[in-house]
């Protein structure tokens, strides 16, 4: 899957069909990690205990730092987000036992080495449109404070910088500047998810931006901001200026 980027299910079927001969599967379809039942539960337990916090039955900041150094990944690397997504982690900077074990199981790994090997695969998942969207939307709930409805602006900006480094959006810096200058408040879930749609469907010159397109108000303001500051030329938005 790392190499070929196909879905788990297809790969699984391929391997099964070729009687778990890797080469065979490669020939016909694609390879796939071992299914869940092949991970060793005890080894997962051990792994969990390695990172588990001294005082709580969770993996907290220290454990995560250790984990990161074990798998040779910087803790701000986006791959940690993907990992958290696999774990269905509720919030950043901590993993519950269930999340940790469940996540590794779904990835089909039960050791540090195997996890390390899985890293390229996880990175590749970001290239998949559908998965990226899921990961992006997951990131909102994961990055926000527990009990809060909205995502703090600074955190949001950090996440956006991270995410749009993977899926390049030329306006991301302007967006972040705009927010800091004009908005200064938390980001709602709707705005978060709609921003991705905006980045995907509207081109950087905003030539196909539709003012009646039901974009969140913040995005409308962003467009105004771009025009006011001459970042986008008015001429290209003839439709928009007429309506406004």
């Amino acid at each position: 899957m790392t190499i070929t980027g196909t879905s788990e299910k297809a790969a699984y079927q391929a391997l099964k069909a070729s009687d778990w001969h890797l080469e065979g599967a490669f020939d016909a379809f694609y390879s796939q990690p071992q299914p869940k039942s092949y991970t060793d539960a005890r080894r997962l337990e051990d792994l969990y205990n390695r990172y588990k916090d001294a005082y709580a039955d969770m993996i907290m900041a220290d454990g995560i730092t250790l984990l990161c150094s074990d798998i040779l990944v910087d803790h701000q690397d986006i791959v940690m987000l993907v990992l958290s997504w696999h774990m269905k982690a509720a919030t950043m900077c901590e993993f519950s036992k269930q999340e940790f074990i469940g996540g590794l199981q779904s990835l089909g790994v039960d050791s540090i080495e195997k996890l390390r090997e899985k890293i390229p695969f996880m990175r590749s998942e970001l290239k998949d449109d559908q998965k990226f969207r899921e990961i992006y939307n997951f990131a909102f709930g994961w990055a926000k404070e527990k009990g809060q409805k909205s995502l703090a602006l600074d955190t949001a900006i950090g996440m956006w910088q991270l995410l749009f480094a993977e899926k390049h959006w030329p306006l991301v810096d302007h967006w972040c500047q705009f927010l800091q200058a004009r908005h200064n408040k938390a980001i709602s879930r709707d705005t978060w998810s709609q921003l991705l749609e905006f980045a995907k469907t509207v081109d950087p010159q905003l030539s196909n931006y539709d003012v009646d397109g039901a974009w969140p108000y913040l995005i409308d303001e962003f467009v105004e901001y771009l025009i006011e500051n001459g970042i986008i030329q008015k001429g290209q938005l003839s439709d928009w200026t007429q309506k406004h």
Partner: protein
Amino acid sequence: MVLHKFGEKLYSGLVGTMTLHLQEMAKTIEAAQGNLFLEELNRKWNDHNKALQMIRDILMYMDRTFIPSNRKTPVHELGLNLWRDNVIHSSKIQTRLLDTLLELIQKERTGEIINRGLMRNIIKMLMDLGSSVYQEDFEKHFLEVSADFYRAESQDFIECCDCGDYLKKAERRLNEEIERVSLYLDSKSETKITNVVEKEMIASHMLRLVHMDNSGLVNMLIDDKYEDLGRMYNLFRRVPNGLPTIRDVMTSHLRETGKQLVTDAEKLKDPVEFVQCLLNEKDKYDKIINLAFSNDKTFQNALNSSFEYFINLNPRSPEFISLFVDEKLRKGLKGVSEEDVETILDKVMMLFRYLQEKDVFEKYYKQHLAKRLLSGKTVSDDAERSLIVKLKTECGYQFTSKLEGMFTDMKTSQDTMQGFYAAYAAELGDSPTLVVQVLTTGSWPTQPSITCNLPAEMSALCEKFRSYYLGTHTGRRLSWQTNMGTADLKAIFGKGQKHELNVSTYQMCVLMLFNSADRLSYKEIEQATEIPSSDLRRCLQSLACVKGKNVLRKEPMSKDIGEEDAFFVNDKFTSKFYKVKIGTVVAQKESEPEKQETRQRVEEDRKPQIEAAIVRIMKSRRVLDHNNIIAEVTKQLQSRFLANPGEIKKRIESLIERDFLERDSSDRRLYRYLA
């Protein structure tokens, strides 16, 4: 002869004889000189008709038997045809006849008198000869020549006449032609000739007339030239696009003047004046439409849409209209008959209808009404109620329920006071007279309640009232609104001058301090009364710095109140009146910061209304796309204010945030209601 089967011979003989005879006649007619031509023709025609009659009588048998069976033209008709062919269409006569007729008409048009009877007969002759004769030989040319004539004349007129005069001339010509037709032409020609006049004199010059400098439509409107306007209306309605032309020019002029009116800085200084100007303008145009434009509905609509346009150009219009009403209800309507009161209120309602931001008006109206009620300064309770009823009819119950609550509170308070005094009559003999108005918080405009220190006599009395009231209304909370009350004080000044002073509660607190001190500094007053400083400064200014009302003396004598200023009773105070009013509770147009505040509160109030509308709509529709929600919400809220699409969007997002709505997963423009 017919009987003897010589019908044919008879008939052709008749034809032949008559033809010859007619040719003779024609020659005679041709020979006639100048003016006698027509007379000769007329005479010969009469002769011929008489002859024809006799011939027909004589040949009646043939007419009835031979002619039908042989499909020959009947005698009378034959006679006419022969006349036509041999006389009228004879080469020498045909043109001469037409020219003569046209010449005569031309003469008449230039003012000469002609023989109309003769004309009538000749024209009738042509008509009798058949409508095609009339049309071909006369009417067609008549219309052409008339068109040329009027084209030229209208060109001349328009160069030298002003609009009013031109229209008079056009009208006169039109009437002339109509008269001409009735006197000596075929009635069917009427529409044709009037069309010619209308086209040449009116339609071709319409725009030039309307826009004529110094005398065109706009000038007529400004100068209330009802007669000219009426004439223009009547003439223009005859031509295609005539009335729309007038209407459009009127509309743009009205919008322009209206716009200037509402943005004129001078006028805006006095709200009452401002509104009066609007009313005057409305009256003016109502009169014009009534007297000159025969109450034409399309013009009424144009008037309404223009007013709606420019009244809303000024965001302070709602406030000013409320202030106007306030002035009227406080004093302006004093002594006015009930009928006239109704008229004025109805006119105000008309302006109210034009407002897009009716909720802003409501806010101001409430504030002003509160001040009027609390200061007891309303000219007529009936007038107040009448206006509330009108507002209710216009906007529904919710608009006025709070206002009515205010009236109820006033009434209830009166009853409460009676009960209070009945219960405490013995104890209260010597105390100052207290009048309390108990206001229900939800109905009255919100004011922050800041209590100050009341003089001892008052605070004891107030406590008595409080316990009395709470005794009968347990579970309620009372808070004294000392910034809204008034007091009447009897004062004796240095030389024994006695006056009764009508002051605000704050002013009372300050003045009462001087019963026990001759000199007080600003700080001392502030400490003793605990009145908030900006209010205290205003209060002291009104007591010490206003000519004719300076019951206090201030050192130094400056207009501003400084922290170190000292105050004394002004022993030299004089006033012509025994009763002196110094209170400051009159409604005025708001200062800039107050205006901002009110505007903000209105915007805040709108948010829940928008949300309620969104929820209502989504609840019934379940799924709706973005543009349609905006349209529906705007429509629902139209009667109160014009909803801003951006604001609606924000409310939608807020509702999404709170899980009332969600976006559809496949079409992001669709919203779904979450039960």
